[in-house]
């Protein structure tokens, strides 16, 4: 395992070192110490490596991730795993605003709470939150799955497209065009796999599913150009 002291060596050196790892690198496991809330840690990775961050991070941790598994042993600031393409990001603590925003793929696991705008405009990412999520989460979510083991804040899933939202606790309010939907056996199967992947022992049968009523302007074929 390689250990990198972020405070001593700096952010640019860290990210360029991690970017230099090729698909067949034998340096497959990295440990980052002294993150101290720094921004843009482990951003833009594109190799099958594991990165353990020993502490809390600032903005945009693990953004644009491909292939890598990034594990944060602390809490994360705004925009974590933003626009993730593939791979996995695990946060042991809480996540600030817009975690997993615009993500195209991969898995984001938040073991604490996520705040507002979690999964905003998600495009295929799977997000599993062990705690609660804040307001305007999954706004305009296009595809992928958002699993919330706790409660959801106001305006969940406003203007969403085809993303699936699973919430175990209460939902403060649903956003425009977001409705509760029937939980069929195929959804239970999808959710069971997501919960397993997210290291979560909640029962799939305890969740409700929410999705788009497909009634907004954007769903009317006569409005197409």
């Amino acid at each position: 395992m390689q250990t990198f002291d972020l405070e001593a060596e700096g952010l640019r050196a860290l990210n360029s070192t991690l970017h230099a790892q090729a698909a067949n690198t034998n340096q497959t496991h990295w440990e980052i110490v002294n993150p101290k809330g720094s921004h843009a840690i482990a951003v833009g990775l594109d190799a099958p490596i594991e990165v353990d961050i020993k502490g809390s991070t600032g903005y945009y941790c693990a953004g644009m991730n491909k292939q890598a598994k990034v594990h944060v042993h602390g809490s994360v600031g705004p925009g974590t795993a933003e626009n993730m393409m593939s791979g996995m990001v695990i946060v042991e603590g809480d996540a600030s605003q817009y975690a997993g925003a615009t993500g195209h793929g991969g898995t984001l696991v938040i073991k604490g709470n996520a705040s507002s705008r979690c999964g905003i405009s998600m495009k295929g990412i799977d997000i599993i939150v062990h705690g609660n999520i804040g307001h305007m989460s999954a706004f305009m979510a296009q595809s992928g799955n958002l699993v919330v083991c706790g409660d959801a804040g106001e305006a969940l899933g406003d203007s969403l497209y085809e993303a699936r939202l699973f919430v175990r606790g209460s939902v403060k309010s649903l956003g425009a065009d977001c409705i509760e939907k029937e939980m069929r056996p195929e959804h239970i199967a999808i959710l069971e796999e997501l919960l397993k992947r997210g290291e979560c022992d909640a029962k799939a049968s305890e969740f409700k599913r929410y999705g788009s009523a497909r009634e907004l302007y954007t769903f009317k074929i006569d409005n197409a150009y």
Partner: protein
Amino acid sequence: MCGIVGLFLKDTSLEPQLGDMLTDMLITMTDRGPDSAGIAIYGSETNGNAKLTVQSGAPERDFDKLDDDLRKRIKGKVLMGVKDTHAVLSIKADQVAAAREILTEIRPDVRVMSHGSTLEIYKEVGLPKEVAERFDIRHMSGTHGIGHTRMATESAVTTMGAHPFNTGVDQCLVHNGSLSNHNSLRRKLRRLGVHIETENDTEVGAAYLTWKMQKGSTLGEALTSSLDDLDGFFTFVVGTKDGFGVVRDPIACKPAVMAETDQYVAFGSEYRALVNLPGIDQARVWEPEPATVYFWSHNAAPTAQEKAA
């Protein structure tokens, strides 16, 4: 952007380090706003005395014999301590109103930064590091304090546009965000007789809270009604003689993180500002909820005002 920090000490043994800790926290936030910086510190109190922190762009001229000149006019005790462009005047509490009027007459270019029994506010254009050095903030002790580093969006980069703003006796406010209805609210408040000096949006927010409290609201009630009456983005941190409070607008896109241990409660725009505080790894760290008023007080038996907050 803008960066905000706040530190409320529970452990009195840390009080001599308050200025040092706040300075480091604020310097860490420099890249959130390099235009101007300010710090409010709640320090020691002398019975029956009030502190007026005043500022001048020409301190050699304006502060020369200011204490003597003021003493002659108010016929009372005046002590003055000059720090760069600021001076702290200690005056009998019941002579403050008279002193402020006389000040506008004898030193028309001197501006009042703060009025309180323990509060002192220091703010200037420049980076947090420079501003803290000019006023030797590192060596100030106190029970609690708040700081701000500004990236101006709504008004000019001037000393008067810098934060914190004094909202009432021993009360102050810092703001991250921008208010969009500050022009109409300023006109409304001015019509009601509220003095607002600049075109700055935060000053209007501060004046609004002052006005609400003059009308009988508690600080908590004033902060709660600000959620209805202020339009725009805000994370406010407010200081009072005994405590400090935090409120964010309902959209809450301006960042905020808090930490609490047995020794302190700390606020930062980012977690980076908190990383060097003692015991931070064991602290309870969380993001304050939108549209929720938080308040901490040193007062074991809080006043009705603080209870309501």
